[in-house]
């Protein structure tokens, strides 16, 4: 019996236990996505005989004799399906990994279902957008803009990949057919800490289809860090591709490479491993105590670990002024301890890579990464290959949020390719994302602060404990960053910071949107809120008195790279918006407690210590331009902005700009798309490349570099562009100096004291991003950041039990915000122009996340009359806290 797919019969019989999604992808329908593989996310939605289903939990054999429609078959002969068109018009996507499923679901909605989207879309998760853009699309978006020559910057130009995203033809990491592909699966440690005594691979190797088994004996005897930074010394070298010692439940023990996933899994089940179980430390509070089991006792300063004999990866003990004197001078002093849990990035595309040897025997790795160039560097170093023998490419990436500023798969894929000489794929399962990728760092933060009745903050004291898990990737940097902008935004003469990042035998933490700022801000902004209450001042005025102003130095305890400054200032405008928000009114259900709260955040536009980008722009013979840039696109929207810059600088239209990106072959170097640098660093390199090319084009027409008006989309000073092509210009930016961006968030909430339910009545966000390059896209980034932070505040927590085992391993157990959970956020932009950023722009990708949790914490405090210090604020915990505070 055949299966009809998009009108064409397919004869191949599916495997007995196969789900329809896998079958459809094998038949070439790559638009059908694997987001969760368990029925939760809706990314795999297709229609079977016209009925929408989740194809990952639909047995493939059952589709025999039926007709299946995928995103590829939705459009009629007359062009896009109306729903595809409205998703394109409203730009109802960022990374686009959820989009095919959203469109297929929307296309099947009845009018009644459209009238209740929170319910009808509860089976469709989007991690990027915060849903406003999606519900706009469902309700019919207004047509996208086509800016005229020279008017692209500042317009709401749609993402260049939009047409591919809405038709399911955008190619993500695994959306390609590689003949002869082998599949890799790993055996993971059942112990929090153990030494591998032996691995018996014979039964595994006997499984038909198994080609190789890799153990620590096969792995290079080199240490590295999974974290990727321009400056490699930022992270301790504490990791091996496969190690003889395993340090958390879920760590790789051995890998099986086979001709099918089924054979690889069977091989993994047949491995016999003998372990010597070692004592483990799970609780970070115990990790530094004398006698605690040492996670990396065999390493030390040489590997970049500050005090391996006390499980301390990094620490900061520094101060400015005299905090004791500051507290003595205060009229009010408040101190509290706050806890933030592990959080998963939950990008809809999991980690993974496909590797092969190309015709020149060069190792090629196609990976879901934010850092192709740094990953190439790491892979070459590990396997002793020169850089030109390794190429790393990223397709479109299905979400990152920091999680992919990490080499979690490429090393092992490289090893398997080099060993077998064959193409190898390794795709994380959703559960592996939870147990064996990285999380946001859990923090314990004690803040003590003092203020005078006139509002002046006299002293700030931070004690911070960061749990990095079993490996130190990003651990020290997240701590340093977390303790910087959070206090540097205040003019305070006396600040003291004592911070530690410690190892435990648990799943490693890693880079996560906000990079430590969100956790420390959560504490600082709540303590300041309480201080304002104590001195009887409204929180906005209290901020106004204390925040930095133009011309101020940005200071915080510790040694800091001095290239950071206020090159534009819109925090005052942000605060004005927040003050205005609190003069609104909302109604809450009878008997509910209502409260409001705000918080601010500052972020450096780029990391300290160097972030580099190269870009090349080439005039093509047909008069179009080709931009080559390293930055990966995962919904960050940098590519759109880069195209806008090219269009305006070269006085053409965006449709005449082609982009080649995220491939180590296209430009010299790019540190990567992280640390909020897509616009301010890569964008600056693009700007410089454009200006270099423009000067050449003008010179070719014997015009000076300032005679820009001679250039049109077709000609220069009357000479056709075609006649002078090809011409190229290159640009480079080293990421210094750096400016700062500001955000402020305000909420009004209502709480049902009978059940603990919290409802957000109103959400207002105000952002200073400098020049707004693309208002629609910027709004989308902010909404997405706020929504992700609402998730971390009200729902999300990765749990680890006493043995060190992660117990929340699916989206069923880890609730991501759905349409129903995310309120509409009013977004305001400050009007500023930055003196450093390209065309006056600043970063705005991580930062909207940071003020959300403390603003909600402060609103909840206002409603309840007491403060909740531990995240997340779920209804059961809120209700419990109300009981605990009953007199």
């Amino acid at each position, binding site marked *: 019996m055949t299966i009809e797919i998009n009108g064409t019969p397919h004869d191949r019989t599916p*495997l*007995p*236990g*196969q*789900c329809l999604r*896998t079958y459809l992808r094998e038949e070439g329908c790559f638009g059908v996505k694997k987001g969760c*593989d*368990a*029925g939760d996310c*809706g990314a795999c*939605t297709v229609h079977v005989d016209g*009925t*929408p*289903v*989740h194809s*990952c*939990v*639909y*047995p493939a*054999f*059952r589709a025999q004799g039926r007709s299946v429609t995928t995103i590829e078959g939705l459009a009629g002969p007359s062009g896009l399906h109306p729903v595809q068109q409205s998703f394109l018009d409203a730009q109802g996507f960022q990374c686009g990994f959820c989009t095919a499923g959203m469109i297929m*679901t929307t296309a*099947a909605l009845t009018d009644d*279902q459209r009238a209740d989207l*929170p*319910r*009808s*879309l*509860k*089976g*469709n998760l989007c991690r990027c957008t915060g849903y406003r853009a999606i519900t706009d699309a469902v309700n019919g978006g207004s047509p996208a803009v086509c800016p005229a020559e020279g008017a692209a910057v500042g317009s709401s130009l749609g993402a260049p990949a939009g047409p591919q995203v809405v038709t399911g033809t955008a190619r993500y990491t695994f959306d390609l057919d590689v003949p002869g592909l082998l599949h890799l699966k790993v055996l993971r440690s059942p112990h929090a800490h153990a030494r591998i005594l032996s691995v018996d691979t014979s039964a595994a190797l006997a499984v038909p289809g198994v080609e190789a088994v890799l153990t620590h004996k096969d792995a290079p005897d080199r240490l590295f860090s999974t974290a990727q930074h321009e400056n490699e010394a930022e992270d301790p070298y504490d990791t091996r591709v496969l190690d003889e010692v395993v340090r958390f439940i879920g760590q790789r023990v051995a890998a099986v490479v086979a001709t*099918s*996933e*089924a054979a690889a*899994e*069977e091989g993994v*089940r047949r491995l016999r491993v003998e372990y010597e179980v070692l004592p483990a430390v799970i609780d970070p509070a115990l990790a530094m105590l004398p006698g605690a089991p040492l996670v990396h006792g065999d390493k030390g300063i040489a590997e970049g670990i500050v005090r391996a004999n006390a499980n301390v990866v990094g620490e900061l003990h520094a101060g400015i002024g005299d905090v004791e004197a500051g507290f003595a001078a205060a009229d009010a002093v408040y101190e509290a301890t706050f806890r933030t849990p592990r959080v998963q990035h939950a990008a809809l595309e999991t980690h993974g890579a496909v590797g092969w040897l190309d015709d020149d025997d060069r190792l090629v790795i196609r990976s879901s990464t934010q850092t192709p160039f740094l990953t190439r560097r790491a892979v070459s170093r590990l396997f002793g290959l020169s850089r030109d023998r390794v190429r790393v490419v990223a397709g479109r990436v299905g979400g990152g949020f920091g999680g992919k500023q990490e080499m979690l798969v490429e090393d092992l894929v490289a090893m398997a390719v080099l060993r077998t000489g064959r193409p190898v794929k390794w795709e994380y*399962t959703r559960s592996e994302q939870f147990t064996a990728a990285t999380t946001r760092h859990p923090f314990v933060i004690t803040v003590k602060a003092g203020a005078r009745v006139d509002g002046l903050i006299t002293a700030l004291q931070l004690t911070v404990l960061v749990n990095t898990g079993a490996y130190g990737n990003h651990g020290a940097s997240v701590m340093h960053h977390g303790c910087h902008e959070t206090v540097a935004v205040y003019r305070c003469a006396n600040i003291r910071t004592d911070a530690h990042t410690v190892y435990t035998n648990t799943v490693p933490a890693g880079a996560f949107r906000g990079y430590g700022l969100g956790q420390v801000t959560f504490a600082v902004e709540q303590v300041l809120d309480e201080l304002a209450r104590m001195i009887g001042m409204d929180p906005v005025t209290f901020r106004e008195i204390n925040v930095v102003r133009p011309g101020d130095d940005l200071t915080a305890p510790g040694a800091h790279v001095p290239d950071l400054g206020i090159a534009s200032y819109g925090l005052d405008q942000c605060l004005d918006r927040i003050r205005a928000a609190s003069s609104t009114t909302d109604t809450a259900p009878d008997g509910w407690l209502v409260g409001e709260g705000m918080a601010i955040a500052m972020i450096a536009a780029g990391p300290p210590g160097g972030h580099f980008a190269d870009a090349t722009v080439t005039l093509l013979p047909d008069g179009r331009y080709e931009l080559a840039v390293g930055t990966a696109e995962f919904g960050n929207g940098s590519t759109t902005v880069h195209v806008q810059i090219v269009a305006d600088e070269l006085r053409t239209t965006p449709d005449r700009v082609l982009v080649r990106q995220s491939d180590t072959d296209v430009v010299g170097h790019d540190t990567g798309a992280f640390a909020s640098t897509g616009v301010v660093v890569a964008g600056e390199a693009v700007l410089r490349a454009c200006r270099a090319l423009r000067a050449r084009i003008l010179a070719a027409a014997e015009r000076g570099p300032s005679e820009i008006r001679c250039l049109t989309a077709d000609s220069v000073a009357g000479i056709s562009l075609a006649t002078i092509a090809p011409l190229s210009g290159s640009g480079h930016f080293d990421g210094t100096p750096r400016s700062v961006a500001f955000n402020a968030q305000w909420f009004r909430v209502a709480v049902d004291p*009978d*059940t*603990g339910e919290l409802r957000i009545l109103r959400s207002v966000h105000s952002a200073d991003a400098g020049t707004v390059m693309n208002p629609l896209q910027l709004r989308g980034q902010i909404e997405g950041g706020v929504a992700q932070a609402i998730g971390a505040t009200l*729902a999300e*927590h990765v*749990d680890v039990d006493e043995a060190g085992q992660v*117990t*929340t391993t*699916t989206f*069923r*157990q*880890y*609730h991501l915000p*759905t349409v*129903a*959970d995310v309120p509409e956020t009013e977004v305001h932009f400050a009007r500023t122009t930055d003196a450093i950023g390209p065309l006056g722009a600043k970063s705005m990708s991580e930062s909207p996340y940071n003020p959300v949790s403390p603003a909600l914490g402060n609103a909840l405090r206002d409603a309840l009359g007491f403060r909740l210090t531990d995240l997340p604020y*779920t*209804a*059961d*915990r809120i*209700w*419990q806290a109300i009981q605990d505070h009953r007199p």
Partner: protein
Amino acid sequence: MDLHTVTEVISPARPGQWRPGDAWLGGGTALLGEPRPHVTRLLDLAAAGWPPITVRDDGVEIAATCTIAELADRLGRHPIVLQCCHAFLASFKIWNVATVGGNLCAALPAGPMISLSAALDGTCVLVGPDGGERRVPAAGFVTGEGTTVLRDGEFLRAIHLPSGPLGARTAYRRGSLHRHGRSAVLLIGRADPDGGMSLTVTAATRRPHVFRFLSPPSAAEVEAALETIPISGYVDDVHGRPVWRQHLTRHHARRIRAELAV
């Protein structure tokens, strides 16, 4: 997800075919949602061709293979049926495939078809390997988190809902950590024409608890009934803490009693 260890599908499946390593297949939305390394064959019941809903003199018979979508379509005029369909965390797309029987047999605390069947005095019709039938009250079908009275080789054929309870007035309350999230508490009250009332507690507890009152109960009587559920009987997982679930059970029970009293 792909169940790589499955080597054969028997479709349609018949009584007597089960052997260790086999799994009865309803819609498959639960079965394919988790790794099942011990399953080697799928015995497809959904292809058996049982009519989804059969109306009889004494009530309706819902085939185990009736999908949630068919149930909502055919019996959605009864408010409690539709409310229980909406109680799924799963959206209407899963309803198109998931079966009523699969929901009972998966035996999750948050199984709303369990709530419905128990609250409406349903009877489960089970078929053994020899083709013989036995009947058990739906309220007793689920024995704990993920466990049922089903024996090896036995499958659920149908759920019979008697007409009286199906036509009775009901009151429904659900609690969850999130607006359309997974049920942490699901209570159904039923007022019968003879003056009796029943209160069914599900989702909060590891198995359903049905309390029957011959006449409309006082608040104290409801309280006392709920007292019989020990705190260890409440579910302890990420979808809500036991004490909160216990509190919500009492809270919603009070409201249900008040609603049915008028």
